[in-house]
């Protein structure tokens, strides 16, 4: 290996080595001459004697020179020089190819970087990643299959205890908590992990140590914390922190260690700034479920990772894990009456991919992303088709040159090597352009897909660079093969004899097929783009049942401080009255839950209906009177709450339209009686019907929701103030926070978020899909149009003889234009037909990614067809105009 490198280095400086060897031998010869003189040989004979002794000078040099010559490298160098010379001769052609390929490769490199990070690249420091899995549970609930990776700590204990396929098990939970104390505290990402978590990694702490099994024990672990390296650097300047206290949520921990640089655990974005034992996190929960988290199956929250034992196959591990889950299911069922038996629920446990995007339940984002990657590949294919076509066109032009060289004895292999070298040189140059494009566009993409704020340098990412290079080489080979395969051997004499007149009818099938392929792929991509655009506008136009844009949500966080119910109520009222005084606030209301953030359910009983629950899920929230004004939810009939609906007064409720319809299909809901929490409770009278509002899921089919006055139902549960602002909500957020923060007792603090952000997260995949499909679809269209233009233009040039004859015979410019444009349009139309068929075929897979949008929308298909016809017309009409300029005189004179 080392020798090879040395040879390679020598190859690059072989001219200098040649020179040095010559000098060296000259020196040697001089020494020999001197010896000869000293030995008394006559001066006249010295030179010949010396030379005799030195042997054959040339042969010595040849032999030494062999040491730094590498024949295939010499050939390659020749070919590269030949290719570069050819490109310098036609810079326009070269530039076109390089930019086209650059766009295609750039799109793919950018997408690869993201897909790789999301699905394939192992987490840093993870040992033997192929054997590490995240545990997913799957079961059937009310005829729906549910797949989740979040479950109970007790379940984790069961699955660890009742399996033997795994050598390691770890529990982890990533969440946001207030880190630090006083004014310096901020909401940060934190990781509650079991002590075994760190055993999955080959990571040594940068300082101190990770926590021990004894520090992570039920019911409550030790109050210890491990900092992340960047947090240690930014907050503590990398100083000695071991033994210092740090407030993590409600727990005051002692810092015992710092994770190494680059360690991010298994988080996919926003890695934790601090890790603490999962039993410390769960054991410090104030609520009852929290305290018994290791005994009951009430609280499904954490996630689990396992390492398969060597020699245990994945199917065997799955069976083992599923058996344990079934046993655990039965154990849970013994304590909870509502659970379906195992033979109905079909519990299955899957040791799946550690990365959720590659697991059995990928998010809508991840699925959209895979499609977008497919689109990027299609763009590259179109680019390749385009370039192949250009190469083919040029090969036709060079027909005579090639024939001549073949006649002179250049082998086909050598021609192939040259053609491949040329296309690969172009592809590599395109790769360079592509990497720049990918870097530039990739930063924007990452911000969208990975919520990544850190600057990313593609140039330093070997995997992405490797992928870009592989794509470039594939493109180079693909585009370089065709022209040589196309050239048929054997008709040398004909080719050498033929003039410009020949070749007019020999239109290449391959080239036509490539044009059609480009048009087809463009149609598919554009249909995709159109569908995503329509889907996005559906999302935007979709009536949520409220106006999120002008609304701010202010929540208080007590940091697990003990606060009595009466203090909570007092604080909430003070927050509300303060909020109403803030300038710019139109209305404000207290709420117990916020759409897209949280929702609550409780027992609901209606006279005359056996089981309300069977009809679907009924969510509720409590709110102060101005709530409907704040959110802009319309009251369709009846009245909203008022100041008179107070504790002790008649119990009232507002129900959603959908709920009214399902519960009282035949009678007026207003005045109806519902009982909340238990069927022994007094009647709550329905006083109003509100429009349906989305609660948590944009795609939810049913919107059964009811509202109770805050004062009449557990007022201490008011957890947020919602404020409707005049004008833009976002910029007002900090002012609201500053106005409310002084009301907070002790360590408590206020967080203010625009409501639009909550919903924006849900709309993300559609927005992304639309943005990416538009970008790539547009790119495809441009590339395909340029391709059509180039090929038509080239054709016209090649056929100038034929066209000239036509003009001489009396063809009018209009006829010629029709003739050429008609040909261009023919390819386009075939492409439209094939592309539409392909898009229809794929519609069934793309439809789940769209929002209330049919994937066979005739408007989209029609629009794309029209667009393509227009582009096809444009791309061929410019060459067509040139066709009319063909000179009949020249045509008749040549040959």
């Amino acid at each position: 290996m080392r020798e090879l490198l040395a040879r390679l280095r020598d190859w690059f400086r072989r001219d200098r080595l040649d020179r040095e060897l010559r000098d060296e031998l000259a020196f040697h010869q001089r020494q020999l001459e001197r010896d000869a003189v000293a030995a008394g040989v006559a001066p006249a004979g010295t030179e010949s004697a010396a030379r005799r002794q030195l042997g054959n000078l040339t042969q010595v040099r040849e032999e030494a020179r062999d040491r730094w010559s590498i024949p295939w490298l010499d050939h390659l160098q020749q070919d590269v020089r030949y290719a570069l010379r050819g490109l310098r001769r036609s810079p326009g052609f070269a530039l076109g190819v390089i930019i086209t390929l650059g766009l295609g490769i750039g799109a793919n490199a950018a997408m690869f970087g993201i897909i790789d990070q999301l699905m394939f690249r192992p987490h840093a420091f993870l040992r033997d990643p192929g054997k590490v899995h995240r545990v997913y549970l799957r079961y059937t609930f009310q005829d729906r299959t549910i797949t989740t990776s979040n479950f109970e700590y007790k379940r984790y204990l069961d699955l660890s205890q009742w399996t033997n396929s795994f050598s390691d098990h770890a529990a982890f939970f990533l969440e946001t908590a207030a880190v630090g104390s006083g004014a310096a505290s901020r909401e940060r990402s934190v990781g509650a992990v079991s002590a075994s978590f760190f055993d999955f990694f080959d990571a040594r702490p940068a300082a101190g140590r990770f926590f021990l099994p004894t520090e992570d024990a039920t019911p409550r672990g030790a109050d210890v914390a491990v900092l992340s390296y960047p947090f240690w650097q930014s907050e503590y300047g990398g100083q000695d922190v071991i033994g210092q206290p740090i407030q993590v949520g409600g727990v005051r921990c002692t810092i015992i260690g710092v994770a190494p640089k680059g360690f991010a655990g298994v988080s996919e974005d926003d890695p934790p700034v601090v890790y603490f034992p999962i039993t410390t996190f769960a054991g410090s929960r104030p609520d009852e479920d929290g305290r018994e988290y290791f005994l009951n199956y009430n609280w499904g929250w954490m996630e689990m990772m396992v390492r398969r034992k060597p020699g245990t196959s994945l199917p065997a591990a799955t069976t083992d894990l599923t058996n344990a889950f079934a046993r655990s299911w039965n154990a849970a069922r013994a304590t909870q009456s509502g659970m379906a038996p195992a033979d109905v629920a079909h519990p299955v446990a899957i040791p799946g991919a550690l990365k959720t995007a590659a697991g059995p339940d990928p998010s809508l984002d991840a699925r959209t992303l895979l499609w977008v990657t497919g689109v990027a590949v299609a763009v590259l294919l179109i680019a390749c088709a385009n370039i192949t076509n250009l190469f083919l066109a040029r090969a036709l032009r060079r027909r005579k040159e090639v024939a001549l060289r073949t006649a002179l004895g250049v082998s086909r292999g050598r021609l192939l090597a040259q053609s491949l070298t040329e296309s690969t040189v172009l592809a590599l140059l395109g790769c360079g352009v592509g990497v720049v494009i990918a870097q530039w566009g990739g930063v924007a993409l990452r911000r969208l897909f990975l919520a990544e704020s850190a600057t990313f340098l593609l140039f330093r990412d070997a995997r992405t660079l490797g992928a870009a290079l592989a794509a470039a080489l594939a493109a180079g080979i693909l585009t370089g093969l065709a022209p040589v395969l196309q050239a048929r051997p054997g008709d040398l004499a004909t080719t050498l004899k033929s003039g410009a007149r020949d070749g007019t009818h020999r239109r290449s099938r391959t080239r036509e097929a490539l044009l059609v392929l480009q048009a087809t792929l463009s149609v598919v991509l554009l249909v995709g783009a159109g569908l995503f655009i329509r889907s996005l506008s559906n999302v935007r136009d979709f009536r949520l049942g409220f106006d999120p844009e002008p609304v701010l949500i202010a929540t208080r966080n007590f940091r697990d401080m003990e606060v009595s119910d009466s203090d909570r109520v007092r604080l909430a009222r003070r927050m509300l009255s303060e909020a109403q005084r803030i300038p710019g606030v139109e209305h404000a209301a207290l709420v117990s839950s916020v759409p897209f953030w949280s929702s609550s359910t409780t027992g609901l009983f209606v006279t005359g209906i056996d089981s309300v629950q069977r009809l679907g899920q009924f969510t509720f929230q409590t709110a102060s009177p101005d709530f409907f004004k704040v959110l802009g939810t319309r009251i369709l009939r009846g009245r909203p709450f008022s100041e008179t609906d107070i504790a002790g007064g008649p119990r009232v409720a507002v129900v959603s339209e959908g709920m009214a319809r399902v519960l009282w299909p035949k009678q007026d809901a207003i005045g109806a009686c519902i009982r909340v929490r238990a069927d022994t409770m007094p009647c709550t009278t329905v006083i109003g019907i509100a429009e349906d509002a989305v609660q948590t899921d944009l795609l939810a089919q049913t919107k059964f929701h009811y509202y109770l006055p805050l004062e009449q139902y557990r007022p201490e549960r008011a957890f947020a103030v919602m404020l409707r602002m005049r004008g833009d909500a976002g910029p007002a957020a900090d002012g609201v926070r500053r106005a409310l923060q002084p009301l907070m007792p002790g360590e408590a603090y206020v967080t203010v978020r625009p409501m639009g952000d909550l919903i924006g997260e849900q709309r993300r995949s559609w927005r992304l899909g639309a943005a990416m499909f538009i970008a790539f679809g547009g790119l495809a269209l441009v590339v395909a149009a340029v391709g059509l233009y180039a090929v038509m233009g080239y054709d016209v040039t090649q056929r100038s003889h034929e066209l000239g004859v036509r003009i001489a015979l009396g063809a009018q410019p209009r006829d010629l234009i029709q003739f050429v444009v008609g040909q261009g349009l023919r390819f386009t139309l075939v492409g439209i037909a094939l592309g539409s068929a392909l898009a229809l075929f794929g519609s069934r897979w793309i439809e789940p990614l769209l929002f209330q949008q049919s994937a066979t929308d005739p408007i989209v298909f029609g629009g794309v067809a029209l667009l393509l016809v227009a582009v096809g017309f444009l791309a061929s009409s410019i060459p067509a105009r040139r066709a009319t300029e063909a000179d009949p005189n020249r045509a008749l004179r040549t040959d």
Partner: protein
Amino acid sequence: MPPVDKRDLLPGTLDMMVLKTLTVQPMHGYGIAQHIQRHSREVLRVEEGSLYPALQRMRQKGWIKAEWQQTPNNQRARYYTLTPAGQKHLGLQETSFADLLTAIARVMQSA
């Protein structure tokens, strides 16, 4: 005794002798040839046609380093220096060569 032709040398012995020579001090090609010739009492005459290719090969293998320097007579010559890798290789060569010589000697004495 006539000078030994390079073809009669055992394979690898030229390398070994060059490396051994360079343990004395850095030398140029001519010096190496002279050294070997002198110390073999004129029996081994290193043909320059095989010396220089061998030097290039050993340089590429990383056993020796080459550097242009002034000779005591103020001429420019390429001096070769033994590298640690070359030193190691020489050690191995010497051992196996000694084993080989012993083996040959045994065969020659057996009859």
